[in-house]
């Protein structure tokens, strides 16, 4: 075959390959996502006493990440935080692997921010979280009519943004209780790393996630991971500001769609 024909055939294959990959993607993404709730991996109600840390304006990572887009991470924050072990991870056999989280607030007088963290035992701890701001950011924020900030007596701000052991607020304790004190080691040692694989989304068909701000005190969102590392356990970092009174309740349910 002449050189020019070889080249023409090659570029035709080049074009066909591009069409083929988009065809494969299209065939896959027209499938519906199963979001049916099976058995709950977690069904627990948390109260004001469940906040173990704060007040602060940041969440842990390789540096302080703002607790919400637009918040100054190094400023004086008034968010109280708790880490909740969802005791669940994505089912990799599912069409859209994810963990479903159903939340319900009572007595929310301010803003609640949800962030996801993930754990792999072999890697020695938590090294991943969702990006809060910029390209690829995702998050879920619930806002109710704000009341004046009150001071909770017991919580203390997290001592550092990485290489810290953070205690979970679950009654059952940590699902992977490596240290025997219901804590997880948050170890972010790669500059800029760990922010691209975890996502919070309202549609499992969009695994890269999105930022959602809502005033619904009851709702659902999904957590997922992309990339090659298979997460063993998802944890939810819940931050609330405003008035946190004795009537405050947050019910969280986690389940894994198949």
């Amino acid at each position, binding site marked *: 075959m002449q050189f020019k024909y*070889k*080249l023409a055939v*090659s570029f035709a294959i080049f074009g066909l390959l591009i069409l083929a*990959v988009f065809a494969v*993607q299209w065939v896959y993404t027209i499938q519906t996502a199963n979001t049916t709730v099976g058995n709950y991996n977690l069904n627990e109600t948390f109260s004001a006493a469940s906040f173990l840390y704060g007040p602060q304006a940041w969440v842990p990572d390789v540096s302080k990440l703002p607790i919400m887009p637009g918040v100054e991470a190094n400023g004086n924050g008034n968010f109280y935080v708790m880490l909740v072990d969802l005791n669940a991870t994505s089912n990799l*056999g599912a069409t859209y692997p994810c963990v479903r989280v159903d939340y319900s607030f009572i007595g929310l007088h301010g803003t609640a921010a949800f962030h996801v963290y993930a754990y792999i035992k072999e890697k020695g701890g938590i090294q991943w979280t969702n990006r809060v701001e910029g390209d690829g950011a995702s998050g879920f924020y619930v806002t109710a009519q704000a009341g004046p900030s009150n001071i909770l007596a017991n919580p203390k701000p997290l001592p550092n943004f990485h290489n810290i052991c953070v205690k979970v607020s679950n009654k059952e304790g940590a699902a992977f209780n490596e240290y025997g004190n219901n804590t997880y080691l948050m170890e972010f040692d790669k500059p800029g790393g760990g922010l691209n694989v975890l996502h919070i989304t309202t549609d499992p068909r969009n695994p890269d996630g999105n930022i959602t701000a809502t005033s619904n005190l009851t709702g659902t969102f999904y957590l997922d991971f992309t990339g090659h590392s298979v997460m063993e356990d998802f944890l939810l970092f819940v931050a609330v500001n405003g008035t946190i009174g004795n009537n405050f309740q947050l019910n969280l349910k986690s389940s894994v769609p198949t």
Partner: protein
Amino acid sequence: MNWRKYFSVYELSFLSLMATLVCVITIFLKTPIKVPGHMAIFFVIPFIIGIGVTRKFGSGLFMGVLAGLLIGLIGTGDKGILNVFEYMAMGITMDFLALVFKGHLGNVLVGCIIGAFGSFAKLLVNYYVISATGLSANILIIGIGVTGTAFLVFGGIGGVISSAVLNRIQHIHFLNQNLYKTQKPKT
């Protein structure tokens, strides 16, 4: 054919250097581009230059095995030693294409095709390895349109660069094998 002398020491050294360069690029070169597969623009270059300089079938495979082993064993590869299959696939694909377009590796269009198909072969094997090891292949398929196109396009751009570089270095004395073959000892 004497397989032990298939590659000369010069060729083996050069191919090993190119394979190491692939490893170094993969580990140390970080770019702000957030499109998956954009690194193909860089890592196809040593492969095509290696194949173009030695002009021997199997050069791509040699570099692929060596680069895959280095990346897998040093531990920066996300799939460990299984990375070797990705780079092997890329090397073999480029070897066959270099055979098809024998004598035209300096043509930028040929470089584009070799780079694009080589990096696409790497992507396909990557998916196969992920599926075979039970990792999250479903998630990756959701974005295969953009990822596949990126591997083809960035690999193609890398190939164009490689061919341009090959055109510039083919005249260099020590790379010209014919000179060695025809050189006779002085009497």
